[in-house]
């Protein structure tokens, strides 16, 4: 995605790094988002990218969801408060979504005579199925966190006070895996949903064979045999 698509003025995009986990906080609309995400994606020491909605204010810049969806690195959306319209589209571009119990979800563009423009009609349908997607899109209903969990829109719901801890724990679990294997698993799942089953199985198999060439695969097997934690290096 061209950075020029992000036309809103730059303001508070912050990135916090802790070990192999980068947390991106979207402030107001930010023209550097795509570049920042690409840089993090290219950084072999970053194994997980958290898109933290906690501090998010203002409009989501155009192209933001596409930038998140394009990440090779696994991503988590931390959702608090109102996750509506473009913000829901942005969170749908992440791999796993964790929400606070107070979060509310809706895709209400149609009520304003508009359509979602950041993949909302597609990724919402993929996440919750056609009937729930159409219900949300056509009624502009806003739903709570428990219903979002039930229909598969988010993967976990925790009290607001525990959101940061829950997201950090999830990120740690993903970060402790072999990064190339995680990226391949993500690629196989993402590409596979657009392929026939036979094609998807062939892709999975070929990525598995390609993974044989990595040091991390050998390290994972050694560590298992020696009953110790693996030390992955992303190679």
């Amino acid at each position, binding site marked *: 995605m061209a950075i020029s698509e992000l036309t809103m003025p730059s303001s508070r995009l912050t990135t916090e790094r802790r070990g192999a986990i980068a947390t991106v906080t979207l402030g107001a609309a930010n023209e550097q988002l795509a570049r920042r995400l690409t840089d993090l994606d290219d950084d072999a020491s970053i194994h997980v990218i958290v898109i933290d909605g906690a501090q998010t204010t203002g409009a989501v810049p155009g192209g933001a969801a596409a930038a998140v969806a394009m990440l090779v690195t696994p991503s988590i959306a931390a959702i608090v408060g109102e996750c509506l319209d473009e913000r829901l589209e942005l969170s749908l571009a992440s791999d796993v979504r964790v929400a606070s119990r107070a979060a509310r979800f809706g895709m209400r563009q149609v009520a304003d005579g508009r359509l979602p423009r950041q993949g909302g009609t597609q*990724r919402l349908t993929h996440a919750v199925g056609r009937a729930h997607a159409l219900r949300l899109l056509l009624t502009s209903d806003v739903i709570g966190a428990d219903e979002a969990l039930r229909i598969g829109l988010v993967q976990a719901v925790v009290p607001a006070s525990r959101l940061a801890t829950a997201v950090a724990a999830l990120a740690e679990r993903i970060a402790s895996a072999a990064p190339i294997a995680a990226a391949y698993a993500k690629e196989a799942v993402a590409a596979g949903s657009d392929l026939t089953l036979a094609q998807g199985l062939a892709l999975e198999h070929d990525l*598995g064979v390609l993974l044989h060439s990595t040091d991390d695969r050998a390290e994972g097997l050694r560590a298992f045999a020696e009953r110790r934690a693996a030390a992955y290096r992303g190679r």
Partner: protein
Amino acid sequence: MSAFETIDYATENGVALVTLSRPEAVNAFSVQMRDDLYEVLSLVRDDSAVRGVIFSGAGERGFCSGADLAEFGTAPSQAIARRVRRQRDVWALLAAMRKPSVAAIHGYCLGSGLELACLCDLRVASEDAVFGMPEVSLGLVPAAGGTQVLPRLIGLGGTGRAHDLLLTGRRVGATEAMEIGLLTRIVPRGDHVKAAASLLRGVLTAPDGALHAAKRAVVGGADLPLGAALDLEDRLAMALGGPRA
């Protein structure tokens, strides 16, 4: 008595009972088990007296603990590993099975074990069952449909739930597995095989032709655009006969 080293095979009233049998290794999926399963699945497919199949695991500890990691890295080369896999593709054989299949799961159901269960049509688990995909945390990727069949099963087409299992490697119990759509039934500990047999008996009250056509329509239709899938359903229905509007 079974003719296979790692699998007990029996038939009873038209149902094949396939029991993974390496209880000392929680039925870990080995090269020998792959070869045995390839022959067993061919038998199930070709034996006209067999109408459906149940998979289970021997021993107290579980259904299948996943691939036998002790054998990893023993192939002479990556090219040979790939060729052998394509020649003896047990997973493709199971995916293409026309007869109804049920996984009867207890205890550990991890990695390849979960992939085997996912390739069955129905999954019955005892309440002590534990599910997980540990491959990525071991520096591997699932290789028997874990990135393809599992998301199709629990993802509602999306990927969040599948990623939650694949990327974290976390284990989930029977109740959560039921909630995310992985299971058909949960039954009391020890009842899983009996419950699977009862479920399959109910399935087999329908004629084989209709069962095979329904499976083909669902599985084949999932790979097609809706219009083409509806045409497939229509052709299969017409081939079965019966009243038409």
